[in-house]
């Protein structure tokens, strides 16, 4: 069983509400759920969808096929209806759409009039539609009723009752109206958690002891700020909306210098403004975690769509030479753990660490049996009152074997903490001499780099190590490549190599992934960009050249069907 439900219409019609509610109902019913969204950069109108895929086996990607389509606008009937499967169903309200197409696939449900009749208000048309979907699937209503009562708790019993009645009306209408539908979805044993990539990054930051977050709102990074702001009171975290991205990164650096873990995030255009601050972090060796939510550029590009074209930007941006850490999680689970690892390594080595993601990963929701917070690490690497008071002298930028100098919190002892964006001596005071410069470059860059590289995990292999065809991806293409491997593995010798820890580029000591690639007959690098930025990085770091590339750069994510189609062109 694997159903895909698309809720489609204009912004402001409640697509998100219906989608969110349905996906929660399915997850609580124990189904594996995968959701993704497609929306325009506008508040009202346009053409948008929210797609929910449910199955009795793990799901990791979006698909094109639609089993049930809720069409809230005329455009949905014209465009999205084309993707509806042979046995699929399109539900719509002919009084709103002013049309009534013929055919078995179409089921006219008067969302609005049922809402007024049973709920008392036309706003509840969405609740009617939600109920109707559950009716088509023959699913129990109890979980929906519980969600309704939780959602409207503050609005009182009358509102809850009206919504329950509206949902039930939609449910009954669908059951009666679609006697020939073949869907069935009985409740499964254990409820699952449903989490989006952007929230997972937020949870990761919170769990890592992030106490200060400064940012300027920019899609698709804003969700981190919203999540953390919602938790600020409970967990003692300050979320500061800065006047611009330049201020955001500098504020985060000020807070980090002051002794707390700090983060900022933005997308390409906003991150462009932070670049000066990035090199400041490097020169002053101030720990910072930077979330970089890629979206199609250049300039403001496609504000609400997806692309993986900021890898080179994250890798090479900012002036001078310094170490940086770059993680690109493939799913919300990795987003949680890699955000945690970014905080840990950033502070351990006093270097900037990136968590790069994209609109697709930010918005997609995945289900898990649970996520284990015990796997998270937390070590406070800073020198605070007790450890400082025993020191006879303190130098912020002291030369050490590892290149890592003691990181003291100012004000907690009589020692003073001095740092500078100019080249400086061990004390942190600005200097001009050649010898100090040389030693500082060795300390900051050359000594730290090999140590940081040892912390980087190798790519994940999915499939056999001797596969003839190896599909390679990084970041958010993880799920769709995995499903493609599942789909092809009966017929082909195929495996996936997925990179989520990207820089410093992983070594081959523990896992000879380069040997694996060299032994394969065909290696295909799959990226959501036009230039093959990751393939270039691999070539630069290892000299290895992929035999083929699949690139998508229309601002839309790879879907299972679309990737398989591309793959057939390469491997038959």
């Amino acid at each position, binding site marked *: 069983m694997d159903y895909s439900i698309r809720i489609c219409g204009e912004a402001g019609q409640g697509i998100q509400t219906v989608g969110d509610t349905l996906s929660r109902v399915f*997850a609580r019913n124990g189904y594996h759920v995968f959701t993704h969204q497609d929306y325009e950069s506008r508040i009202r109108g346009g053409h948008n969808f929210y797609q929910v895929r449910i199955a009795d086996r793990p799901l990791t990607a979006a698909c094109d096929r639609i089993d049930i389509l809720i069409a809230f606008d005329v455009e949905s009937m014209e465009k999205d209806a084309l993707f509806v499967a042979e046995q699929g169903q399109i539900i719509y309200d002919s009084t709103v759409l002013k049309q009534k197409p013929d055919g078995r696939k179409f089921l006219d449900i008067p969302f609005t009039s049922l809402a007024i009749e049973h709920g008392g208000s036309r706003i509840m048309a969405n609740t009617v539609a939600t109920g109707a979907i559950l009716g088509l699937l023959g699913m129990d209503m109890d979980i929906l009723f519980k969600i309704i009562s939780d959602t409207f708790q503050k609005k009182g019993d009358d509102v809850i009752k009206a919504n329950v009645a509206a949902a039930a009306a939609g449910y009954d209408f669908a059951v009666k109206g679609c006697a020939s539908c073949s869907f069935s979805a009985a409740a499964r044993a254990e409820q699952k958690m449903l989490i989006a990539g952007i929230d997972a990054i937020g949870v990761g930051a919170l769990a890592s002891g992030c*106490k200060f977050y400064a940012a300027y709102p920019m899609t698709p990074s804003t969700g981190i700020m919203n999540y953390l702001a919602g938790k600020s009171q409970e967990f003692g975290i300050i979320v500061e909306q800065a*006047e611009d991205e330049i201020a955001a990164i500098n504020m985060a650096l*000020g807070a980090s210098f002051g002794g*707390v873990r700090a983060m900022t995030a933005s997308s390409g255009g906003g991150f462009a403004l932070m670049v000066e601050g990035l090199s400041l972090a490097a020169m002053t060796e101030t720990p910072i975690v930077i979330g970089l939510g890629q979206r199609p550029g250049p300039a403001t590009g496609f504000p609400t769509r997806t692309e993986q074209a900021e890898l080179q930007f994250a890798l090479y941006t900012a002036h001078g030479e310094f170490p940086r850490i770059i993680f690109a999680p493939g799913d919300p689970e990795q987003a949680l753990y890699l955000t945690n690892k970014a905080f840990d390594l950033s502070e351990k080595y006093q270097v900037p660490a990136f968590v790069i993601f994209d609109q697709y990963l930010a918005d997609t929701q995945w289900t898990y049996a649970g996520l284990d917070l015990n796997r998270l690490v937390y070590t*406070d690497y800073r020198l605070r009152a007790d450890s400082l008071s025993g020191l006879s002298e303190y130098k912020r930028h002291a030369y050490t074997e590892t290149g890592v100098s003691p990181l003291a919190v100012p004000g907690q002892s009589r020692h003073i903490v001095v740092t500078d964006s100019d080249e400086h001596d061990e004390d942190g005071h600005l200097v001009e001499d050649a010898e100090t410069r040389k030693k500082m470059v060795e300390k900051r860059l050359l000594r730290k780099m090999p140590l940081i590289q040892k912390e980087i995990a190798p790519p994940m292999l999915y499939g056999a190590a001797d596969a003839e065809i190896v599909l390679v991806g990084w970041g958010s293409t993880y799920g769709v490549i995995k499903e493609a491997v599942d789909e092809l593995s009966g017929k082909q010798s195929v495996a996936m190599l997925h990179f989520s820890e990207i820089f410093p580029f992983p070594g081959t000591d523990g896992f000879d992934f380069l040997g694996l690639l060299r032994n394969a007959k065909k290696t295909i690098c799959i990226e959501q960009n036009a230039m093959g930025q990751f393939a270039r990085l691999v070539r630069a770091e290892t000299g290895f050249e992929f035999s083929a590339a699949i690139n998508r750069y229309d601002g839309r994510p790879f879907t299972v069907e679309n990737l398989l189609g591309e793959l057939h062109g390469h491997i038959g």
Partner: protein
Amino acid sequence: MATLDDYKGQTPAWCPGCGNFSILRTFKEALVELGLEPHQFTIVSGIGQAAKFPHYLKCNTFNGLHGRSLPVATGLRLANHEMLVFAVAGDGDCYGEGGNHLMHAMRKNVNVKLFVHDNQVYGLTKGQASPTTHEGTVTKNMPFGVFSEQLNPMALAVALDCSFVARSFSGDPEHLRSIVREAVAHKGFCLVDILQPCVSFNKLNTHEWYRQRVYHIEPEYDPADRVKAFERSLEWGDRIPIGVIYRNSRLSLEERIPMIHERPLVKQSHDIAKLCDILKEFY
């Protein structure tokens, strides 16, 4: 108690006769008078001759980027509002490159004490016009003279309801010392504009030029009156007032943030166990 010797830093690399020397000495004296120890405060600065200031005394220092001292100072204050935070900048650094940050620091009313060494010229890059350079002044890169109107930082600050707005003069150490003390005592964002001759590049606003014009604001002046303060802030020319031009008692940013009412962020521990229920909302 700290003495002047405890504040001895690196040897300044300023030009002989620079107004910065007087500001440095006076600032140290004020610190000693206030009974502050070098580890009890942090000076944040950006880029420019003034921004080198913290290296020339002994204290916690974050010497960052051109124009960016205020965001760093804001982050630092929010992380640790028990730390006294000064920002030191030049007129180019603060009113030019960092103009946007100044505006928002005043709006936010973060409790940072900003001292602007205002010599009305760019010294570090050798003599270009700054936002406070007089209109019409000819420079190497402005052969037709400065076209832009001279920025009035005092009027700007009063207009933005900045919590503490004062002007002093490097040639009047006693006055500057009292202003430093008042700024430290004030709760909220403080802008102190310090008139300072640049002996190398500013041939107009010389020591003598300032000395002929600067006058002390009379003791009976009430800095709480914003309209009067605006009037006073517009005085520039034959007579230039120094002293506290405007003062209000707005709540500071730190006071508005409930999470740090009991103790600063930096003193709050992190406990992963407290987070065990954090994933519940995703079910």
